[in-house]
């Protein structure tokens, strides 16, 4: 079953008054994402992949084309209808620190969806309990709840973003280079966590990255984007198995004393 269907989506920007020039950031893109599936979107910087992600959540208005989410064409929804739909679709941005409110403690940030009543009425103690549950799910410690974003590392802040998204409990997530600003070992931690969350919460995802190796790990299918168009959509199952089996360095030649 298809959760997202995109038909001939376009986003053109114009500049100049007399000599109008058009930039075709997204120029006729069509694809679909099945429920529970992750579609990877790869391309070089400037190819329009981030614009596609933003269009899908209607953070920007398309020039033309349709976006069908769960049977509804969301390009036709008005502001109020769109606002009601927003909790079902969420975005993870590249820089976690700037996506969190710097003046809110981590716990408050995670509890905000509860305070807004997105999960129904909740008592203060119930909220606290749910926040601590989520903090545990994303691998943070209870002590982090009282800290501010600037007191945490990039990887920890991205965990907070994930906890907050789980509090909203969306069906669809657009992840735009979620580990671009993180170190390799932290990147591995966050991507592993995202894979687990996707499995446990049955999330559907559009995973945007310029790193083919990363996309291979995260995606069921991969769309290749070039200059505003999707040039190819590949099935990843065979590619992924190969990557998992690839040899792991570190034969520990000198490490004869390792306890078995």
């Amino acid at each position: 079953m298809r959760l997202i269907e995109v038909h001939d989506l376009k986003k053109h920007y114009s500049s100049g008054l007399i000599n109008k020039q058009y930039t075709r950031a997204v120029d006729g893109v069509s694809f679909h994402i099945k429920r529970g599936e992750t579609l990877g979107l790869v391309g070089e910087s400037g190819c329009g992949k981030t614009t596609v992600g933003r269009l899908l959540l209607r953070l920007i208005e398309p020039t033309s084309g349709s976006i069908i989410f769960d049977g509804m064409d969301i390009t036709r929804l008005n502001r109020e209808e769109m606002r009601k739909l927003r909790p079902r679709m969420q975005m993870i941005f590249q820089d976690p620190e700037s996506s969190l409110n710097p003046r809110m403690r981590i716990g408050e940030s995670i509890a905000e969806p509860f305070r807004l009543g997105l999960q129904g009425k909740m008592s203060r103690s119930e909220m606290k309990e749910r926040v601590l549950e989520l903090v545990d799910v994303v691998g943070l410690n209870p002590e982090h709840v009282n800290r501010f974003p600037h007191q945490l590392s990039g990887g920890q802040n991205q965990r907070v973003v994930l906890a907050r998204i789980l509090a909203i409990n969306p069906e669809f997530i657009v992840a735009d280079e979620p580990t671009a600003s993180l170190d390799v070992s932290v990147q591995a931690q966050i991507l592993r966590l995202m894979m687990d969350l996707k499995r446990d919460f049955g999330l559907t995802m559009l995973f945007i990255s310029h790193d083919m190796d990363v996309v291979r790990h995260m995606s069921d299918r991969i769309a290749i984007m070039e200059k505003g168009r999707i040039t190819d959509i590949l099935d990843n199952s065979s590619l992924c198995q190969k990557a998992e089996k690839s040899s792991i360095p570190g034969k520990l030649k000198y490490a004869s004393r390792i306890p078995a």
Partner: protein
Amino acid sequence: MVYSNAMLEIIDLRTCFPSQDGLVKAVNSVDLQIKDNERLGLIGETGCGKTVLGMSIIRLLPSSARVEGQIIYNGHDLLRLTGEEMRKLRGKEIAMILQNPTTSLNPVLKVGDQIAEVISLHRGLGKKEAKARAVQMLEAVMIPEAERKADQYPHELSGGMKERVMIAMGLASHPSFVIADEPTKGLDARTKTEIVNLIRDMTSGRSMLIITHDLAAAGEICDRIAVMYAGELLEEGPTEMILNDPQHPYTQGFIRSLPRQGLHPISGSSPSLIDPPSGCRFHPRCPYAMDICKKEHPQMVRLDEGHSSRCYLCG
């Protein structure tokens, strides 16, 4: 003791910063040699002290930094030079390609003029000659239409082009030693490959320190690699050995966490530099940690010719 074939020798370098919470020991007792014509990659994650190490060499740290030890360049200890003596060396003989070209370039100066400034300052050329040399440098870093680009401002150039300008500026005075700090940061796959190839070609026959967390880039450019963690070197050796046969558990974990190597994360997070773990600094995250690792601080052990590792499991 000065090694005759070492272009730069760092002996027991300790760099720390006072902070509200205590002394931040960013570089802790690092010994490192870079030979003539050798390109050394300094690998490590954010906050491990690798940039501070580079800045200690070229002496561009804030005045609050406390730097101890020796950095021998050409028979002189850089740390004993006066500010004036250091200023004559900096940019001319020892140059740095700073990270983040977007913030490192002057936004209100044309890129050609920024490069010409380096040339006229260090080689005493007139304005016109310096500008012509700057254009030549831009051509050397494969910037198309170099003459036109020289008259543009940084914001008019793409990230890859700005990185090329940084490289041109760093190499403009023909320095004998170059430090490059994260030259591939924030570039997409194709641009990264181009920049890596450019650095490799432009710096062959030069002595260089490349600071990066990009192991693939270091593998392409460097003759040797040193791995830094929490202010210390944990492993050092020829590039081939470090990439294909790493001996320190941290180096192994680092490589295994690469997407291409299976995306296996190292558990836990980097330790504090104010109050680092006892014994081996990696022991809280090490899958092989033993009792001794918690109690005693391991020394660098030599394994093979030029390959050493700071681990009780090695040697």
